[in-house]
């Protein structure tokens, strides 16, 4: 079950203290489905992340939507993945490419609270998904 983007936006609106934001992000991460060990392979690693992030894309040709299964060995990163997936998962390539992810990060005030190296990892994940969407469009 994936998190709902509107609920995430609403929840972030209520947070005052960093503790609340981080508990929420970590809890989102805990509810993110894990990838089976067999899918956690070297070739599925997203480059540019400090912790390990695996991405398994699949395409539903009927609905023309991208299915993304992403996992990490770190809780906070899993929470960030859950937020990204709330925006991207089961969307068409056109919807993915049209979505303003930097805008979402700004709305949630996410990047300000991430170190630049972790922010870069998040951007690397987003770039990897957009690349996947572009390849589907070109196919």
């Amino acid at each position, binding site marked *: 079950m994936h998190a709902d983007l509107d609920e995430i936006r609403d929840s972030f609106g209520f947070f005052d203290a960093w503790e609340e934001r981080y508990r929420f992000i*970590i809890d989102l991460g805990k509810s993110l489905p894990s990838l089976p060990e067999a899918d956690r392979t070297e070739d599925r690693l997203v480059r540019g992340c400090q*912790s390990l992030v695996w991405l398994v894309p699949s395409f539903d040709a009927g609905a023309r939507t991208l299915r993304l299964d992403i996992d990490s060995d770190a809780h906070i990163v899993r929470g960030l993945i859950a937020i990204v997936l709330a925006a991207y998962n089961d969307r068409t390539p056109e919807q993915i490419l049209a979505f303003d992810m930097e805008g979402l990060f700004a709305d949630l005030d996410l990047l300000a609270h991430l170190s630049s190296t972790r922010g870069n990892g998040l951007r690397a994940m987003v770039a990897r998904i957009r690349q996947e969407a572009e390849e589907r469009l070109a196919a």
Partner: protein
Amino acid sequence: MNRPSSTTAAVADIARLRADFPLIQGRDDVVYLDNAATTQKPRAVLDAVRAYYETTNANVHRGVHQLSDAATDAFEGARARVARRINAAAPSEIVWTRGTTEAINLVARSYGGSVLRPGDRVLVTELEHHSNIVPWQMACERAGATLAAAAVTPEGALDLDDFEAQLGRGDVRIAAFGHVSNALGTVHPVADLVALARAAGATTLVDGAQAMAHYPVDVRALDCDFYAFSGHKMYAPTGIGVLYGREALLEAMPPWQGGGEMIEEVTIEATTYAGLPFRFEAGTPNIAGAIGLAAAIDYLEALDPRAVGGHEGELLHRATAGLQQVEGVRIVGTAPDKGPLVSFLMDGAHPHDLGTLLDRQGIAVRTGHHCAMPLMQRLGIPGTVRASFALYNSTADVERLVAGVQKARSFL
């Protein structure tokens, strides 16, 4: 490091030292425990660098004018200061570099390049920083030699039997090892390792990056051939480091970078090289950095090393004991002799999770593999959280670390 009992007077003196470090004084929102990465700078160092630029700045060695003479005197005075600090036989055995990494690269390229032959081995240890692995891999590749690593024990100490066994094969040409492990804090019995390596006919290089801020180092007592360290990990500026080399070895080594400063005479056909140590210092050096490093040495030498050692040992002891009280925390690296550095893990948490939650609480630690990926692979862990201490850290800093880890645990 053994833990001498620190007297109340010594601790009070140490507390006063915090005032010498503008960043530590000015940023009381940050508990800075990433000292193994780089230390903060005392005002004496900042003043020395500033005074140099304000009163003495000129290029060294070549000028006929007064400012150049004064800059050269200050620069060469700094070299002599370093030589005295580590008990080198002469200032000409001190080569300025950008840091430990460049010093090791210099030896691997110049010395390694001239002595390594196919079939030779270079021996490092599994505890090394990448800086003391990769340059040797490159040198071995060029020469057709092989890189070997002596094993680490599960406690994070060097396996001395394996080290001896590796040397016993008789083909080790160069043995390069750290003085203090940057990842786990383990202090190696460096003098013993040097003696074993020398007996086996190997030339020795010691990576002293993590030792110089905490211990008085005497290169002649250690009897090593090369000793490399960085200024910025011992309260001096970034971008200045030192290669100590035994004169007879340096004398026989070819230059590795060409340019100004390192020559005696240049024609289009050929160049004769300058003597030691200038042959290894192509280009305008980091003059202000060298002067800053000399000021950092002056600062350290004005302190009672036993009081500093006792204080830092006390911080390590309290941090270790405090962290062990937190449920699910495991200390990584439990060798009996450790520098003021503690690496740890928490069950069910990635080091980055812990590092991020500590950062949100204003506690600066290092997380990850600490540029020691072979060590992490050997220990079977993705990395650790590392808290490393300097003389300006307080027992209150340690308490905040332990409380911060407790709090992080409640999130995970």
